[in-house]
């Protein structure tokens, strides 16, 4: 895997939640970021980088980068 972990720096008053761009899972505190072909994607784990390149990207094309 080529990605890296990024810890969220969030205050407790921040009630937003973040979802994985690959599988949709909640990302509570840290994201696995990797280059998905059109920029960096925010995912929940290295497993999602694996499934992205082995299934999602070939099946649906590359995803847009995380905002």
């Amino acid at each position, binding site marked *: 895997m080529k990605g890296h972990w990024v810890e969220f720096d969030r205050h407790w008053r921040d009630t937003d*939640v973040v979802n994985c761009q690959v*599988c*949709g899972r*909640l990302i*509570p505190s840290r994201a696995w970021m990797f280059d998905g072909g059109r920029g960096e994607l925010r995912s929940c784990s290295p497993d999602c980088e694996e*499934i992205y390149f082995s*299934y*999602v990207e070939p099946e649906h094309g590359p995803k847009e980068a995380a905002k």
Partner: protein
Amino acid sequence: MNEKLELDNVGLHVLHNAFTNIAAEMALVMMKTSYSTIFNEGLDFSTVLLDARGNLIAEKNFTPSMMGAIPNTVAWTLEEFGPEFFSPGDIVVHNDPYRGQCHLPEHMMMKPIFLGEELVAFSGAIGHVAEVGGKAPGRFASDATDVYQEGLRLPPVKLMEGGEYAEQVWRIVLANHRTPVNTWGDFHAMIGALNVGERRFSALAERYGTETVVDGGQRLIDYSEKRLRAEVVDLPDGKYEAEMQVEDDGVGSDPFTVRVKVVIRGDEVIADFTGSSPQVRGPMNCTFVVALSAIYNAVFCVTDPEALIPRNSGCYRPVRIIAPPGSVVNVVHPGPSVGGNTDLQPKLVDLLLAALSQAVPGRVAASSGGSSSNLLFGGTHPETGRYYSNYHFDGMGAGGTNEKDGNDAEVTRHSNCRNTPIEVFEHRYPLLTLEYGMVTDSGGAGRHRGGLSTTRTMRVTAPEITFSALFDRSRIAPTGLFGGEDGLGSLLLVKRRGEDEFRSFDEVFGVASPTKFTNVVLCEGDEIRYRTPGGGGFGDPAERDPEALQADVADGYVSREAAGRYGAGPGPQEGTAR
């Protein structure tokens, strides 16, 4: 001195039985001590043991709809706050649908189990709390357009801290639920279950040693993963697609679409919901963990229907999901989701089985009724003067399978819940049951017919009652499979006092949907009548065993007229009218 337990196959079996017995004892505590019928009669809860990272070790899972939520709720709480958040004697509660819960009514409580200073496990209880505030008594606002109308949302917060009441949190909860006495009792039933789980787990560790028990839990998880992967390997690799329409979202009358592609590759399964409709305005959206529960349910149905593999987190590892955020299978804030759990989830299981029917046609079922047929009501009880509220569901027809007819009058396939006996129901609530039975011809014809649905007629015995409903499959019937016919759809009617005929709620009250509405006021003497959906048939009806058809006609399950749909008909023996 600990008792020696080798972690060989025999030792693991001993531990597995010990863990599951603890979970079962926890469930008994909830059943015996809770206040609400949804727990002590309906059994709409599950009790579990989890490891220190939130992985499921053992369960008494009355409700498979909760499978996705149970491990993720604890794991994500740990991930958000860290293990240092938990101290001995704490109990954390959480019903946030965007943080791992099924929908607002489902509350997960988790209690850390410490041995010495080490966090070694969690006891957990998840249950459908009968009243959580919001715009509708019984907290099923079927026309809600955001989560705030559905009730009180709790992110992970401590109800108990070091064994003491977190009084400020309790005050907020009890002030926002319509029936705080029930909440008090039901929450304490859950707390009691957690305490029993903690005590029994600690006693097990005392007996065999902490390391043996903790290590044994991990080995059981690995064992289950290995077993389930071996089952998945036996499924034919491929991509299997299916699509369904859901009739409406409770707010508008337009249908929406759910699409799935089930990919079997080697020893893993991927359920890809890409292409499903964006999340809808009404509460028919489901949360990520609800979609996850549905795929677990479908995979277990086709790989291990007898539950021979210990159900723990190892069983979940070979199953992966792609549920786009902001779609009907993964609602994002502030979308409502209360009906997604009860009424979209069972249809997701149907959809997934329809996709898997292309891979393993002999191991799937036709569509089930697919609706929990939720009835909610509340008001001031004329005999007690106290506010009451209730969530009620009834059985529907299950889909026929390759082996047998669908089960009759079974509460949805994503739950193992029970109906509430009429005697208990009438004792608690001002509704008199006039008729209750199964519906002739409601199961789709087939080589194996769909299960029969149920019908009930009730009369209001209080001056007034506030009534809400969330039924589905009234316009889009449960589908048959491999030539089997569709089951009969649902129906919900009302007869005002002094009138002769039952009519639909949209006709009488002008609500947008005839089966999804909130806060209709009924008066003493008014009657409601409903019919839940029947199951779809499996296989060509002409291939049905003539003796089975004859028995169906004799029992009143199939009318003589409908028996003609089976080709040859039931033969010379007369059917008995019900």
